[in-house]
């Protein structure tokens, strides 16, 4: 279905999805290993300063996770949408360019060095992601342009090389560090304290806004770079802009919560099925849709096998694969 991307339509869709997100968040706050009725959740939210167990559970355990899930879900989905447009490839996901492997190498390196560096492993992961972004750009451009073919190749080769490095470093780490890192690699939304969200939220929102500014150009880019250039789009600037913003979003997401898979790949497709290809409509849909899906996945991750918690990446993989197969069969006709 294609919904014309008039400002009114965009606002209506965004408002509806935000409402759905709000309902999902409320439901998620009541669910968990400890059963809390809605009234308890409401009291916990409405009266700050109360220190009952319900308040601690709702405000210090569940709420930060849900907020992080919203941010990371939106970040990965928007990054995936941007990359699929940039590379003109429906199989592109935020990790195809090696960013998540770079982040993992950064995190493992910090753990290996131990001490103060180990405590700052999210920063090290982000540094790893950004270094990989620059490296893949330098490797994958041809003639000053980000031609999609060489960029994908550069990304895939870099990702696979870094994966080998990761496996090597894992053998060097002590067993207890490996345990922690294995969880992070599978996606873990529970480790980030509320204070860090105050830095993450503006960063992610700004980057998503940046991509939204490029939405019209992304539409034109889909026609092909030559056609886009003829239509007056500054192709190089748009390509580099999308590349940097998408990599930045991916880097932040992976540094805080590990490699949560399938969202960046599937949510753009689901979004296109709902609202069509116009990025002015697709980007907000993908952002909110990704947020909703990750909150749902995380809720499942902490309730399905309660009191044990599954890593959320496992849930998105188990749920994502059948969805992907369904989509594949549907488009194959």
């Amino acid at each position: 279905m294609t919904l014309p991307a008039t400002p009114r339509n965009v606002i209506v869709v965004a408002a509806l999805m935000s409402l759905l997100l709000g309902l999902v968040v409320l439901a998620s706050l009541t669910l968990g290993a400890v059963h809390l009725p809605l009234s308890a959740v409401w009291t916990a939210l409405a009266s700050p300063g109360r220190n009952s167990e319900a308040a601690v559970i709702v405000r210090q355990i569940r709420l930060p996770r849900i907020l992080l899930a919203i941010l990371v879900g939106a970040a990965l989905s928007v990054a995936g949408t941007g990359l699929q447009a940039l590379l003109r490839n429906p199989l592109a996901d935020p990790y195809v360019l090696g960013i998540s492997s770079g982040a993992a190498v950064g995190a493992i390196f910090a753990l290996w060095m131990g001490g103060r560096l180990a405590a700052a492993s999210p920063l090290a992961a982000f540094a790893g992601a950004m270094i990989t972004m620059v490296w893949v750009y330098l490797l994958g451009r041809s003639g000053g342009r980000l031609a999609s073919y060489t960029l994908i190749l550069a990304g895939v080769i870099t990702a696979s090389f870094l994966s080998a490095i990761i496996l090597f470093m894992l053998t060097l780490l002590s067993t207890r560090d490996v345990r922690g890192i294995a969880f992070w690699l599978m996606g873990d939304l529970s480790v980030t304290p509320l204070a860090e969200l105050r830095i993450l939220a503006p960063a992610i929102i700004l980057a998503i806004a940046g991509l939204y500014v490029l939405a019209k150009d992304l539409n034109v880019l889909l026609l092909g770079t030559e056609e886009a250039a003829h239509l007056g789009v500054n192709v190089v600037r748009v390509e580099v802009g999308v590349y940097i913003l998408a990599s930045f979003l991916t880097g932040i997401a992976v540094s805080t919560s590990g490699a949560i898979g399938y969202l960046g790949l599937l949510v753009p497709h689901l979004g296109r099925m709902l609202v069509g290809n116009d990025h002015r409509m697709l980007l907000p849909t993908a952002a909110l849709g990704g947020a909703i899906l990750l909150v749902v996945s995380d809720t499942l991750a902490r309730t399905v096998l309660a009191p044990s918690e599954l890593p959320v990446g496992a849930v998105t993989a188990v749920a994502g694969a059948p969805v992907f197969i369904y989509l594949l069969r549907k488009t194959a006709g």
Partner: protein
Amino acid sequence: MVKYDLHCRLSGPDPERSGWAWACILAATLSALLSSAAGARLVKDQTGRMVNVPENPHRLVSLAPNITEIVYALGLGDELVGDTDYCDFPPEAEKKPHVGAMVNPSLERIVALKPDLALGTPEANRRETADQLERLGIPVYGVTANTLEGTLGSIENLGKILGCAAEARSLVAQMQARIDRVEKRVEGQPKPTVLFVVWYRPLITVGPHSFIADVIRAAGGVPTGDNLKGEWPRLTLEELQPQNPDVILFPKTESFSPSTEELQRLPGWKDLRAVKDGRMFFVSETVMRSGPRLVDALEELAGILHPVR
């Protein structure tokens, strides 16, 4: 869900890395400053972290099976308000409210139990879990041991902070007496080389600095792999054959009970001296728990390596 969990077996320690220290000093200092608990004191736990332990903790959560055993052995079973899904000894421990697995316990369940102290070990728990609990206002005291003495030390330490130092000392004295008896009995006898198999495909054994290796030494054996690095080193067949251990030991667990015939059929194994002489034994899983029953395991091992005539 499979009850057996590999993490439950990973009770080997690592003496070189105390990476918890720096990461948690800030959190612990902050919580010390903000602590309003009457009579809380800052102590150093066995992993080197500073922990704000309440004066009289009486609501404990145990995050590992060996800790649960120690708590019960000190007579504090009633103060245990929660333990993990894998805490199976003593049998009463299975009826306590469970908080999940060791590697990913549910923070919500722990908070809902209103503990004033959580007890963990870096051998089984993640440092992230300890950080998160500290942030939620629950102090986490860590124990760790990489020698037999270290296990006794864990018991004494826990006794001191839980307010039953006397019981702990008496328990440790009994354990030490039994250890001394075993060491005296096997003294002077030729020491067989012992391979302790944690897993056989691939072959994983215990590192030389683990308490399991120490138990083998105390039982009058020589653990293979003094040159091996790490807590759970992998051994290839090439490395194993020149060592040619006299005795091979397997821990008896629910999911790991291959028959001796099955083991003999593994490539390269049938040429090993231990296999040819039929000196392959299953030992109780308690040898992998750094707790009060470790001396039972020691006596069992000594009985195998140096049978009483």
